């Protein structure tokens, strides 16, 4: 499309006014979604295309991370916190023209929590005891235990409402209730969405949106520069942002994400099972060097596994402050010398570059690091599932995911009964103040135990045409919500 426009412009008249009334957008993404069914795959890219655009859930994330009504106009919570009654918006239809009602909600949730479910976030639905249809616009969900975060869980992309007729084919031909529907998918290149004319809510300003998949950072840069792509919400090359900032054609959008980037350590692997060794590693890390060297300054240092923009966040970076001398002393105390650690690095830039820097920093305290760069598939198999690693770097992008530290079989294998009890208590607590206290305690616990090296909160660095308004600045979940996007005249 862009090429035709350019050619036309070149051939003809001087194109200024013709381009003004623009209602199409081309977004760049680094990874292509393997399929378009958010209820059947974990890839963040699925949500980045479909969330709020094609599929909607009962509740949804707002740009600031708040939970706001989605398909459910409102919901009531029973006194004991066990029953949620959702009131659905009327007049909602799927893209295939069929109506969305309480039956579809029941179907979607029951499907997600079923025995043979392939939902990647099955845990979100684990607390549901029963889903009942009260009337076409009312659904009652009974929980097995009170859950203060249930509305939050229902906002996830994995909890969107699908229709029984199309559920099995959503991977390639998604049918949702959102303001956009799939127009075309050229695998490996792009996905085109077009406005769904019968959308139940306010019609979006855009009539058409194209997601273009450009994995190579250099190509991404070139595409932005050449104007082939209008916006790149998660731009893969932070080193080029200065260039964009200097160019009036572009705006650089820097926001926060839910991505706690950690140097994960295998807590069961000798000698990392010794907290002194883990502490030594943690103290050897110079966070600012990593943020500068790997992310070109974008990122917020963290001292624990918690997002800094969260009101309950406490700054614990002092616990693992950069202090190589202390590291050396700790290693000596632990009786460790000539230590060689294997570091498995997944593909993202933060991991690859961060890994190189950490390796250099660890060398300063006498630890040799053997780096292996891995594809995601290999990383998942070997490091994540096989737990065959000493160190790895990964950004945990799920919102509010401190709960992973309560799972002893999780890949870094932190098995602490005290922490597990703390989290169990949290799950059963719905009073905000009490929850806040528990969360702070949890943050402190894992920081003191040096479970992992906490590096920084991943920044969301996006680049967009300066005339585009309404893109999300932060990433409370991985999504490119296009409902509010407009071109400035």
């Amino acid at each position, binding site marked *: 499309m862009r090429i035709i426009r350019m050619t036309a412009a070149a051939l003809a008249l001087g194109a200024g006014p013709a381009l003004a009334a623009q209602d199409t957008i081309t977004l760049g993404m680094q990874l292509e979604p393997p399929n378009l069914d958010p209820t059947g795959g974990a890839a963040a890219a699925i949500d980045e295309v479909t969330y709020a655009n094609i599929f909607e859930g009962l509740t949804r994330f707002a740009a600031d991370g708040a939970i706001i009504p989605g398909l459910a106009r409102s919901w009531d919570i029973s006194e004991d916190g066990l029953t949620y009654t959702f009131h659905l918006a009327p007049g909602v239809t799927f893209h295939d023209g069929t109506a969305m009602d309480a039956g579809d909600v029941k179907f979607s949730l029951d499907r997600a929590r079923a025995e043979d479910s392939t939902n990647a976030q099955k845990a979100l639905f684990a607390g549901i005891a029963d889903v009942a249809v009260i009337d076409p616009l009312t659904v009652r969900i009974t929980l097995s235990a009170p859950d203060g975060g249930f509305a939050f869980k229902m906002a996830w992309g994995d909890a969107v409402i699908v229709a029984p007729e199309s559920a099995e084919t959503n991977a390639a031909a998604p049918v949702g209730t959102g303001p956009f529907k799939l127009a075309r998918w050229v695998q490996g290149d792009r996905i085109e969405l077009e406005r769904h004319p019968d959308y139940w809510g306010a019609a979006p300003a855009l009539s058409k949106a194209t997601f273009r998949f450009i994995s190579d950072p250099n190509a991404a840069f070139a595409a932005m520069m050449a104007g082939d792509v209008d916006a790149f919400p998660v731009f893969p090359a932070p080193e*080029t942002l200065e260039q964009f900032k200097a160019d009036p054609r572009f705006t650089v959008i820097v926001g926060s994400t839910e991505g706690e980037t950690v140097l994960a350590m295998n807590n069961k692997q000798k000698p990392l099972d010794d907290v002194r060794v883990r502490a030594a590693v943690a103290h050897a890390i110079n966070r600012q060097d990593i943020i500068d*060297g790997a992310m070109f300054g974008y990122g917020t240092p963290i001292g624990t596994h918690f997002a800094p923009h969260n009101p309950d966040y406490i700054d614990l970076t002092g616990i693992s402050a950069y202090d190589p001398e202390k590291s050396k002393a700790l290693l000596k105390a632990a009786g460790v010398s000539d230590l060689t650690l294997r570091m498995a690095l997944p593909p993202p830039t933060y991991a690859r*570059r961060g890994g190189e820097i950490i390796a250099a920093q660890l060398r300063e305290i006498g630890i040799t690091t053997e780096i292996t760069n891995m594809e995601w598939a*290999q990383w998942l198999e070997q490091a994540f599932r096989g737990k065959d690693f000493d160190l790895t770097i990964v950004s945990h992008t799920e919102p509010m995911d401190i709960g992973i530290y309560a799972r002893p079989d999780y890949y870094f294998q932190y098995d602490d009964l005290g922490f597990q009890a703390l989290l169990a208590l949290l799950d059963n607590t719905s009073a905000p103040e009490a929850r806040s206290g528990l969360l702070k305690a949890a943050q402190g616990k894992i920081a003191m135990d040096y479970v992992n090296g906490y590096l920084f909160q991943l920044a969301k660095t996006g680049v967009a045409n300066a005339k585009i308004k309404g893109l999300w600045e932060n990433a409370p979940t991985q999504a490119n919500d296009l409902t509010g996007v407009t071109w400035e005249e």
Partner: protein
Amino acid sequence: MRWPVQLIIGAILSGLFVLAAAASFLWVPHEVSTLSIADRLKPPSARYLLGTDHFGRDILSMLMVGARTSIAVALVAVGIGVAAGVPLGLAAAARRGSLLDEIIMRGNDLIFAFPSLVIAILITAVFGPSALNAILAIGIFNIPVFARVTRGGALSIWTLDYILAARVAGKNALRISAEHILPNILNLLIVQGTIQFSLGILAEAGLSYVGLGAQPPTPSWGRMLADAQTMIYTAPRLAILPGLAIVGMVLGLNLMGDGLRDALDPRLRRARE
């Protein structure tokens, strides 16, 4: 013997890189394993002759050590090709027309039929990316090349009378291959070796560029390119210098191969004598 001009230019050019690689074992301007983030992306200066990269490493030092990686990978890959390909080619020629010959040649064709880069990617998918697996991936595709060159050269020697004389002297195929065939196709092999060496440098750069070659922190020209390409606008020398190094090394080797071909071609030599 008069040395062809290309040979001299090529030898000097590639010799420079080999020398730099060798020197890097003893001395480099700055240690490449130490990062100094504060000094990143510095332009060339007296302290950093070619400037620094995004981690504040000295580019000149990186290029010197990177030459080591490129040369080592390409050289060992050529070694694999020679070690496996030459005996196969000799055997095929010694038993020309036999089942063994047929199997060897079909096997060669089969390897040739596989898209090399895809196989390299698959190999690293199986064994994980490393310099060793890059060598393996490049080396495998050198085998049929050497087998073919060896067989072709050997076949033409096998028809000569001195082979008949050796057979009359009661020598067996193994002995004839070692004593008469191999020394006389050596020039072919040297020329081919030079070419494969330069192709190996290119292949290593390509593999490292897509992240399948030598792993960090070992510097490699291909990975330097890959790392630098997003900075091509802010610090174009980061992408241009390793590219030039690759071009220079490969160009030098190719010129050398061409020159060697001229210098060692028996037809040309007979004319000079």
